[in-house]
């Protein structure tokens, strides 16, 4: 059975809770998520932590219907029905794969503006794994 162990999830908390990006000290490219060698220049990981802006635009998306969701999302899917997933391009450049929450399937467009929010990703043996999802901008500022 495929399983995500707690240490694996916990190790990525800076990205999953805080949307921390990693700026390569050699070429200034922001890597997100963490990789062992810079995505741009290939140098061994030597980064400066950077807080990303929590805003982005939808680059591509799909509406997941019943049967297309992993077991971790069965309860969520039962409650909300079909839900969108998307590749979101953050304001600073990196792309991230995410679920779009509080978003009707008909609403999603390529280029739609979205903002980050901390939500329950799933629960396993009573332990809730929180993480960042994206949603349509709720209150314009």
């Amino acid at each position: 059975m495929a399983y995500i162990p707690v240490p694996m999830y916990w190790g990525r908390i800076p990205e999953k809770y805080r949307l921390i990006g990693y700026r390569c000290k050699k070429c200034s490219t922001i890597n997100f998520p963490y990789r062992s060698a810079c995505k741009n220049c290939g140098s061994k990981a030597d980064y400066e932590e950077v807080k990303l802006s929590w805003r982005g635009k939808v680059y591509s998306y799909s509406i997941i219907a019943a049967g297309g969701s992993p077991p971790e999302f069965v309860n969520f899917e039962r409650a909300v029905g079909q839900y969108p997933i998307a590749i979101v391009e953050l304001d600073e450049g990196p792309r991230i794969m995410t679920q779009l929450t509080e978003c009707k399937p008909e609403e999603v467009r390529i280029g739609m503006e979205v903002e980050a929010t901390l939500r329950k990703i799933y629960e396993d043996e009573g332990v809730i794994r929180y993480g960042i999802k994206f949603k349509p901008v709720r209150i314009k500022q």
Partner: protein
Amino acid sequence: MKGEVAVIGAGHTAFGEYPEKTYPQLFAEAFWEAIESVDKGIDPKAIKAVFIGTLGSGGSQLGNLSCAITGDLNIVPIPAVRVENACASSGFAFMLGIMSVASGLYDVVLVGGVEKMRDVAGLRGRYWLGVSGDTLWERLAGTTFPGMYALIATRHMEQYGTKPEHLAMVAVKNHYYGADNPKAQFRRRIDVETALKSPMVAGPLRLYDCCPTSDGATAVIVCRSNIARRYTDSPVYVLGLGAATDYIAVYEREDITTLRATVEASRSAYRMAGIEPVDVDLAEVHDCFTIAEILAYEDLGFCRKGEGGKLIEEGQTYIGGKIPVNVSGGLKAKGHPIGATGTAQVYEIFKQLRNEAKERSRQVPGAEIGLTHNVGGSGGTCVVHIFGSRR
């Protein structure tokens, strides 16, 4: 390496749902069919090594599957290895198998794959459908396999104007040929309207855009080309091979409308074989989803980037068109037992290049050069082989 290794036999179980057959039984079926397909006969003891591709769906034998198989077939103590690269497992097993022969280490090698996907159902089954993507980001965004290709499809439609109808046409073609293939899981033809009305799985991909889950096994016997005549007067030669990786997750790639691994792998294969895409007579490509076949047309060089929809619309990938693709029915209609697909493609090319497709409607007339294209996950791994009836 060009032409150093030849395929002399191949076996392929009918793909579908076989609760009564265990994975060793399925593999044995393919194995015996491969042995019996060798024209001048072959003693199983001639085989010197085994490479088996499987994901291990269901988890019943995750460790040491290779010797579970050699033991079951009573071919111990020859060396054996399980190869895993998601859906490209047996394609890569084939690559390693022919490399081991070309190196001079073994002269006859057995390569194959097996998968039992239908034994686990419901939530347990769905766990296995998501393991070939990036766990932390793709899976936890709430998607399994269809969602990843759906993201690619959405973008391809946005950038190139590809339509749902184009996707449906791929499914129609593959069911058209699958109906004539006794090894295929689905034997019924469909039309575009049926495909377009089927339930959404991961928008824009519908039920008929997705390959099924399947039980099945395939096996292929390869040997050094200069001893092939011992076994058959019509060996099929491996003219080229190429393999590549790309970022495992779709979102990590710069242009998600192309599978860079396919582009790189096929370039290497064409170069080794000394041919161009236009020289290929037929191709077995990796259509785990209809959009994947459209991408394959472009990435393998059969048409320009973005014109994959046009190629299927013009009927150019049917027999009689520019480049017949998936006349076996493809993964879509033939079935996709993950570990067995790579060598299933080799089986088809082997039969076609020897003019042996029993169902004449599926035989590409005068086929001399064939290509197999096997992809792992959403494009993280890819291996391409080019075969010829002449060395």
